[in-house]
């Protein structure tokens, strides 16, 4: 497998893939116009030039700052972002969608800035606890009175000055960096840290219990089930990858179940989530909000069938909040199972490249960071995709890069930027183009 990465990176492959992403994004936007109004949107040229220009500039930035970077990550992210934006234009009023287009551009800027600022990912390894603390602060910022506020029952938002954002989206990146740094440093200790019956010794359980407590805090203080599960899941996976101790996986699983049970018993909104999931289609409840949302998601998916109604020709606007949590169901209706599967396969590709990048690194920090970032995207994608298809109870997390939402989009582009940096190795402008 490492043979693939050992090959010299061919920039043309990346450019070709990027052009595919640009063409797909513009075509999707044109199809939306055709499906909705029977004509190609009038601003298709401006739209195409903006998207195409922005993607090409981002690609240029990669060529400049990370010439040996993985060629696939940016095209996949661009394609997901472009498809998501087309669907947002299909579902929401023009001015709201325009704002999301700007967020996509800001995301690309954040991607480029990440590459410019993080010239070598190993510099992140130097501030383990500063980054960890900052991550924790961002994570819990919405709880602070006067800064945080609630939307739809979850306390995820913060306003700082004129800015309104979801700090946890950025906090989770810092936490992953912290974990990669911390776990790579304590690796030997953790590997050895097993007592009788293969269980971790009490004192080695410390970090695990700490993370567990933090996840529960997110769940109870912010009422954010999705983020809570995600943090803990990513933490356990990284701990296991770092230590190689299956015992952590088992203990983590037990703690996960226990946390879920505590949350279920203590929090009505968790009970509701489970009830919605189990009884979405029952006649007695199907017309109530929470149940009906899941029912509408299933109806949209089922109406799409194998090939879908075509963009702009279905009725995904019948689902409440179709552009954020349920955007995959909207794709399911209009692009069918084939389209939905294609989008999920793009994520599988992204995950595959992310883990490939991890494998290609020799150092523990780089490996753990790439693994952590990839796992975060993977688990988040699975959580929302499985939620809207009723495989598991729905927890409202955005579908990375695709869903409506500025914070999530920008944060995911930062993560992609970090993965690109990890794949490319340090940027040494002084010594460029000698090889």
């Amino acid at each position: 497998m490492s043979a693939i990465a050992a090959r010299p990176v061919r920039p043309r492959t990346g450019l070709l893939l990027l052009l595919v992403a640009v063409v797909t994004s513009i075509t999707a936007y044109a199809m939306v116009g055709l499906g909705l109004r029977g004509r190609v949107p009038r601003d298709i040229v401006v739209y195409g030039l903006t998207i195409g220009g922005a993607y090409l500039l981002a690609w240029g930035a990669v060529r400049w700052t990370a010439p040996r970077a993985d060629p696939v990550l940016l095209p996949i992210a661009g394609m997901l972002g472009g498809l998501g934006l087309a669907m947002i234009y299909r579902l929401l009023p023009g001015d709201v969608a325009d704002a999301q287009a700007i967020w996509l551009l800001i995301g690309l800027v954040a991607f480029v800035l990440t590459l410019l600022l993080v010239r070598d990912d190993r510099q992140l390894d130097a501030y383990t606890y500063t980054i960890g603390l900052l991550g924790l602060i961002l994570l819990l910022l919405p709880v602070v009175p006067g800064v945080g506020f609630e939307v739809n029952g979850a306390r995820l938002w913060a306003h700082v000055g004129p800015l309104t954002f979801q700090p946890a989206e950025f906090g989770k990146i810092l936490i992953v960096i912290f974990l990669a740094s911390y776990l790579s440093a304590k690796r030997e200790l953790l590997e050895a840290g097993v007592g009788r019956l293969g269980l971790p010794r009490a004192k080695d359980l410390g970090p695990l219990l700490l993370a567990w407590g933090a996840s529960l805090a997110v769940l109870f203080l912010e009422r954010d089930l999705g983020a809570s599960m995600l943090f803990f899941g990513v933490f356990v996976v990284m701990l296991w990858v770092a230590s190689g101790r299956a015992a952590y996986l088992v203990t983590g699983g037990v703690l996960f179940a226990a946390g879920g049970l505590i949350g279920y018993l203590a929090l009505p909104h968790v009970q509701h989530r489970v009830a919605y999931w189990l009884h979405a289609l029952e006649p007695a409840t199907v017309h109530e909000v929470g149940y009906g949302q899941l029912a509408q998601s299933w109806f949209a998916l089922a109406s799409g069938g194998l090939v879908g109604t075509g963009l702009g020709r279905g009725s995904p606007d019948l689902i409440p909040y179709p552009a954020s949590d349920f955007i995959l169901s909207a794709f399911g209706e209009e692009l069918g199972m084939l389209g939905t599967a294609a989008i999920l396969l793009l994520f599988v590709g992204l995950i595959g490249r992310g883990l490939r990048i991890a494998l290609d690194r020799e150092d523990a920090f780089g490996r753990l960071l790439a693994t952590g970032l990839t796992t975060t995207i993977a688990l988040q994608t699975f959580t929302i995709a499985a939620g809207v298809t009723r495989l598991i109870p729905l927890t409202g997390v955005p579908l990375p890069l695709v869903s409506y939402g500025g914070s999530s989009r920008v944060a995911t582009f930062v993560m992609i930027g970090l993965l690109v940096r990890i794949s490319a190795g340090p940027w040494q402008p002084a010594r460029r183009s000698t090889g």
Partner: protein
Amino acid sequence: MERRIRRLGIALVLLFAVLFGQLAYVQVFAADDIKNHPANFSRQLIAEYNVQRGKILTADGLVLAESVPAPEGSRYRFERRYPQGDLYGYITGFYSRIYGRSALERSMNSYLSGDASELALSTFSDLFLGRQKRGGNIFVTIEPNLQEVARTALGANKGAVVAMDPRTGDILALYSTPGFDPSQLSSGSDPEIRRAWKRLNADPDKPLLALSHQELFLPGSSFKIVTASAALENGFGPESQWPNPHRLTLPLTNEQLQNFGDDHCNGGSSQITLIEAFEESCNVTFAEVGLRLGAEQLAAQARAYGLCGTLPPERTTCDGQLINFELPFQNGRFPEPSYFEQNDPLLAFSAIGLDNDLVNPLQMVLMASAVANGGMMPQPRIVSEVRDSQGRVAREFAARTVRRAISGSTAAKLTQMMIAVVNNGSGYRASIPGIQVAGKTGTATNGEGRAPNAWFTAFAPAQDPQIAVSVIVLDGGNLGSEATGGQVAAPIVRAVIEAYLR
């Protein structure tokens, strides 16, 4: 660490594999069941509105209902239009995405939507030739000019007109006012439709219900057609003699039953024939007839004419009275014989169309048609045929009869009696030079303080009947409390008959 990252990759791929499995289940394997869930009505409706629904037309091609492309920005591809406004509202009914369907839009839905088995060939060839699926067109028996005449003749009155060809049961005109324009429930924005629905339901005149066939009224003297039929069937001829007191003291009571305006019939002579009493619409005589015949005979005759049995105030039993009709028809009512046990006074009132007798113009026109048709009651027919979008006949509806209501000889005698009403009696305002009309008036009390409802039911030409008409005018129409069926309703019947036969 390398091995674990690979294992993690495998685990994540497996996780996504489960997701693909779930997608395949929801979107392909269980998709039909999920799509057809009743709570998915919005999407089902959108799918329904994506098919161009068939038209409803008259035989000469007047469009009563059609589906046209919806304005841009609508969630639906087509929109239902009713170019004739409220004139045909009770015939077409409405086709509302919020409140469902009514009348022909409801009963003929499988044809209009193109889903009926008779249209399968057409739908299949549309599919094969790549044409858009389109619903079948429904042709109705209404004569558009007669429908217009009915509206004009009723004018500002509240009431209803039903005209029928007694030989086939074809509905020639069916108009009831105040009515409603189905467009307001079928096109426009959801809030507009909801507002219209609220307004129509709050209206005390109940414009969503047709007076002609969905509501019930006391028939008053119109019911004497039934009582006379029972008398003739039981051997009392038109010339049979009956005592003619000024008023009838009801058995076991001190209550007295009066003639209309407290007149003394037949110039005050002591005897009166059945035909004279019918002509003058003599209450006293027909109360006597009812009491003489008894509840069993009267109820049996009412059932034969299609009136359902009742035990007032609640229970209604229709066995064999219900008929196949494409519109929601309320059969008339006449009490069960047991209702009159120990209560002869009520039988006297029931014999002259009061107490708990109930009918509507369609019920009356069916009775008149039976008389006109030699005793055979036709089945009403409003749809003559269904054609597919290419104009090929997909289904024809044959004329049928319901049952024999009276014998041929009774029908002939009753016709003579109804002729007398128009020629010499209370129905003279329905007479038309050169055309013999046979009819019966009715003036039914309408409760304390309200003007009576005026009735007239007739057919013509009497010896070769081609049209039967029944009219009700509520609250005495423009004559108010002074109104009688002969004054208010007969001229309307006359206008309709004249328009049809001239």
